[in-house]
Every structure is written in structure tokens, then in C-alpha cells.
């Protein structure tokens, strides 16, 4: 029982990380049809700079952590907005080229991160409480899992609220459905593109800081390794569906934890098998719109 609870909560924590990456990917794809390979780099740069700032403030205090998260989110948002503005926008409606540019950016930035911060992991110090455990139903659960889950839920609620209650949210929701008609109503949908990139970048940047708490370190590759799972999550959840991304994040992460524990560390393979199964049964994903298998 206690193992079960531990696996479940740890899975939820990992799922929170996946969601922070996948939410942006899914929104960006939904609105713009862009598969963003550079999304992992937004996460990594957010994590690195977030921790640089936190380290200069004080090591391991709560407010330094808060600063790291805020800075991480801000840096992620700026990096993403700049990417959209300077690279993606120039290739308006040329989706393959847009993917290619983000591929190039991902390769270049990971190399640059290695150049700046080295190839070895940089260990981070967070408040002591996060490294301690809390007992629930006999399971000793690392406290950082709770932080991850709480913040991912917060991000989900914030994004949903933004989409529901703001004009930009309205434009984004309409644009996901029919971008052409949005422009035909006299709306410059490109501004919504920048906004969506910034939101996705902010979530990823925050995710970067949280991922380094989860793993205990930052490295130049932390983003790209999470990105692959985030891709799987978005396909399983249904491309362009935020709710689908949330559900699939949790399912994938929990499955991964269970397979790692009970099936001899085969979590990664189990996830790919799950993807294959979903494709066989329901190619458009759990909550994907009809006909959006492309």
C-alpha cells in the first residue's frame, strides 16, 4: 500500500513537470500548427538563470526559491516570445520550415548551454523542507512532490482562467478552432501567437526550476530529455487540447513510475508502448478534435 501511494504521488509530481512543458507545446501547436523543438531550451534557460539568480540572493532560502521560479518563468517567457517574434513569424504558415528553425535553435542553444555552464550537472540547493519527507498512508513522500503538484495545478488553473476570461484568451480559443476566420474578423492573430509562445515559455521556465528540484540538478540537456516525454504526452492527450495534455501527463508519468518499479525499470519503454496503443485505438489522442490527426 505504502509503495503504491509513493509511486502514485511521485508519478503525479513527474506528471506535473510533463504538464508544464506539454501545456505550452499543445497551445502553440493548437493555435499555430508549430511543433516547437526549442521548447526544451526555454525550460533549460529558465532553470539555469533562475538558479543563478537564486544563488546570488541566498542559498536555500524560501524567498530565493520564489525568486528562482519567478525569474525562470520570466526568462522562459522572454526567450519564447523572442523566438516567435524573430524566427517563427518570418516563416508564417510554412510549418515544416518553422519546425526546422526550432530544431536548429534547439541544437544551437543546447550547445551554447554546454559552453556556458559545462557538460556536468550543476547541483542546486533548495529549502531543506523540500528534501524532507512526509508520511501519508505509511508512504514517506519527498515534500518537493507536493510543491510540483501544487504549482502545476496553479498553472493549469491560471491558463484556463486566462483562456476563459480575457480577450486574448478568447482570440486564442477561437484561433485554435479556425485561425483564418479570426483574421477575417479584423483581428491580428499574430499578436496572439506571441502571447501563446510567452505563456508556454513561462510555464516551461517555471518547469525548469521545478525539474531541477525534482532531479536535484540542472544540466544543458534537462529540457531536451523532458521534451520527448512532453511530445508523447501531447500526442496521447490530443494535439492542441490543454485538458488532454493535463490528463495524459498524469497517466504517462504514473505509468512510467509503476513500470519502473514493478517491471524492472522499463518505464520509458512502457510509455512508448502506451503511445503505440493509443495510436492504434485512437489516432487523434484522448481529447483530440475529430479529424485533427495531422
Amino acid at each position, binding site marked *: 500500500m505504502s509503495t503504491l501511494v509513493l509511486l502514485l504521488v511521485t508519478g503525479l509530481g513527474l506528471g506535473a513537470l510533463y504538464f508544464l512543458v506539454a501545456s505550452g507545446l499543445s497551445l502553440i501547436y493548437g493555435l499555430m500548427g508549430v511543433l516547437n523543438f526549442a521548447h526544451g531550451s526555454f525550460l533549460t534557460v529558465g532553470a539555469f538563470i533562475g538558479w543563478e539568480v537564486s544563488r546570488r540572493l541566498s542559498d536555500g532560502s524560501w524567498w530565493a526559491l520564489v525568486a528562482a521560479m519567478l525569474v525562470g518563468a520570466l526568462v522562459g517567457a522572454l526567450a519564447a516570445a523572442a523566438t516567435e517574434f524573430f524566427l517563427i513569424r518570418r516563416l508564417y504558415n510554412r*510549418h515544416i520550415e518553422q519546425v526546422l*528553425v526550432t530544431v536548429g535553435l534547439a541544437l544551437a542553444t543546447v*550547445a551554447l548551454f554546454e559552453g556556458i555552464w559545462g557538460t556536468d550537472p550543476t547541483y542546486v540547493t533548495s529549502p531543506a523542507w523540500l528534501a524532507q519527507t512526509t508520511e501519508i498512508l505509511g508512504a514517506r513522500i519527498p515534500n518537493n512532490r507536493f510543491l510540483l503538484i501544487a504549482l502545476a495545478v496553479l498553472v493549469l488553473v491560471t491558463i484556463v482562467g486566462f483562456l476563459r476570461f480575457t480577450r486574448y484568451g478568447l482570440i486564442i480559443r477561437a484561433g485554435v478552432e479556425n485561425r483564418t476566420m479570426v483574421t477575417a474578423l479584423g483581428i491580428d492573430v499574430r499578436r496572439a501567437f506571441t502571447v501563446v509562445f510567452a505563456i508556454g515559455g513561462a510555464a516551461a521556465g517555471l518547469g525548469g526550476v521545478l525539474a531541477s528540484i525534482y532531479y536535484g540538478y540542472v544540466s544543458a540537456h534537462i529540457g531536451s530529455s523532458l521534451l520527448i516525454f512532453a*511530445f508523447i504526452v501531447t500526442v496521447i492527450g490530443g494535439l492542441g487540447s490543454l485538458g488532454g495534455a493535463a490528463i495524459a501527463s498524469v497517466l504517462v508519468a504514473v505509468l512510467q513510475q509503476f513500470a519502473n518499479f514493478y517491471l524492472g525499470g522499463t518505464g*520509458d519503454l512502457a510509455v512508448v508502448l502506451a503511445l503505440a496503443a493509443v*495510436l492504434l485505438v485512437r489516432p487523434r489522442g484522448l481529447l483530440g478534435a475529430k479529424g485533427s490527426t495531422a
Partner: protein
Amino acid sequence: MTEHGMRGQGLSGQRRLIIKIAAGGALVALLALLPLLNISIPGVFPGPTYTPGTLQLLAYAMLIAALALSYHLLFGLAGMLSFGHALFFAAGAYGLGIVLRRFSPDWLSPGATFLVAVVITVVLGFVLAAVVGSLSLRVTGISFAMVTLAFAQAGSVVVRRNPEGLTGGEEGLSLDVTNVPSFFVGVLNTRNLYWLALGVLVVVYLVVLWVERSRAGHVVAATRENDLRVRVIGIRPYGVRLLVFSIAGALAALAGAAFLLLQSGVSPRVATPDFTLTLLVIVVLGGVGLRWGAVLGAVVYTLLDQRLTALAGSDLIAGLPDVLRIPLSQPLFLLGTLFILVVLFLPGGLAGLAKLGEHRTPRGPRRARTIAAEGTTR
């Protein structure tokens, strides 16, 4: 399609074809003679052309070119943006390595064993691609890209995990030379390995050419432009796509097998999705949709990578201030940036640059755009 139509038009079409074949033959002959010549191009090759170092580099470039050609079948011809093609190259390299270790029957001579091992490996590549393709091709466009990426990642995980001690984990796998013909073993025989690589490149080129000209090739090119048009004439694009995907996988496996011999081993790096990204960079750099674009891109990329790596370690760079030193000492940073610039400003790639003089409109960008259309109709 139109390409062939245009080429076949008039007398000059015939003549151009003959010139092309002659030029191709001459180029292959020249490349075959290279190990016997003493040509030095400082700054491009590490030494004269007969030295093992240079031959090794050239052979490596040719195998990457063969791999890029097989990728061209997917992306250039069929418009399938796969992020998992490295999987089949890795399958070829690891496959041959493992088969050579585990398959050594008494009733076969070492030479025959080697040949059988190569055949098994290529068939393995075909079958693996057929399995992966049959699943991934259930979706198209961007989903297809993501799904192939996921499979490549799974392959990479398996290789690193070292199941039953088969793949050697992080260490990689070294070549078991017991059944390998002696003329393919050792630095002294680099020349033979060079010819082997050239042979593989020529074979892959011819197979790719054959596929492109075949009925399946035409159909699959038509599905790239317009899925519906093909469905209307009663062909399910799935089948031809799968066929092309599997052939590309087998060719990649062949290149991978030769790669194992050339490097006398293989490391898990070739199984990573990053390696596929490199392939994509190569094909786009050279020019999407053109066979020799893929070859050109592979050669330029390999040489550039090698030179930039040498540059990164040089004293010149070490003496620079951080703002310049850090980016310049990362070859991938420079290549990635170059790639972005090519996509933004040179949509036809290097080959497109050459074509620009010939025709008014380069073919590369339009092709890429029509591929995109598939994923966008909502």
C-alpha cells in the same frame, strides 16, 4: 512527376541524361581513384588523400551521405518528416555487431558467415522499419514526426540499457573481427573500407533513384502533394508510404552496417534522436527534394563539423574573450545557427543556391511548403 516530364522533353533532355550519367560515372571513378592519389587540400582534409586519416573522414562522409539519401526518400520524396530515422542506422550498426558476435555456425566459411550477417542485418532494418512504420503512419504530418521521435527515443533507451549484454550500454559495442574478412580490418586497410563506403553510397544512390522512378515512387510523391488526389484514383497512400518507409529503413541499416566496419565499433550516440536531427540538418542544408543535395549536404556537414571541432580546440579560440570563445568552441552551436540561417534565407539549401542560376524558381521551398499544407487544413 513533373520533374521527369520536364527532363524527358525534347532532344536536349536525352542528351542531358547522357551527360548526367557520364558525369556521375566520372565522379565515382575519380572518388575510387582518390586513395591512389596524393592530393592535399589544407583546411579541408586533415592530410593528403592517400592517408588513413583523410580516407577515414571521406568514408565517414560518404556513409553519412548514404544515410542522408535514405532519409531523402522519406522527407524529400514522400514528405514524411520522420524524427526516428537514426533508429534504423543504429539497428544496422548494432545489428551487424550483434549478429557477428552471436552467429558463427561451423557449416559456413567465415566469408559466407559475414555475408549472411550483412544480409540478416539489412533484412532486420527492413522489418524493424516496417513495424515502426505500420504504427507511425497511422498518423500524418506533425503527429507522425512526434511518434517517430518517440520510437527513436525508445530505441535509444534500449541500446543504453544493454539488455542481456547485447549492446554494451554506454560503452558501445566493438566489432568482433572473427568472421570479418581481413581486408576490412585495421587502419592499414582504411583504403578498402573507403571503397566499401563508396560502394555503399553508389548502391544506395541507385536504389533511391530506382524507387523514385518506380510506380510506388510516383504515387508516394503524389501523396506528398495531395493526399486526396491519390485516394481518388483508388490507392491507399498508407501502403506505398509504408513500403518507402521500410526501404529507407533497410538502406539506413546498410549504411549503419558499413559504419560499424569503418569505425570498428559503434557508440550509443548514433541511436539518439539528436542524430536524426543532424540528418535533417544535412538534408535541408543540401536542399530538400534533391538527391545530390542530400549527398552535398552530408559532405559539407561532415567536413564542417570536423573542421569546427578542430577549430574549437585550437589556441586561437582559447585566447579569445568569453563572449566569443564560448560560442566558437561549440561546433553544434555554429552548425545550428548556420542551419537556421539556411532555413530563413536559403530555402533551397546549397543545391538550391546552385540551381538558382539555372532556373528561375528553386524547387526546395515550394516542396517543403506543400508538405506543410497536409498538417494544417482544419
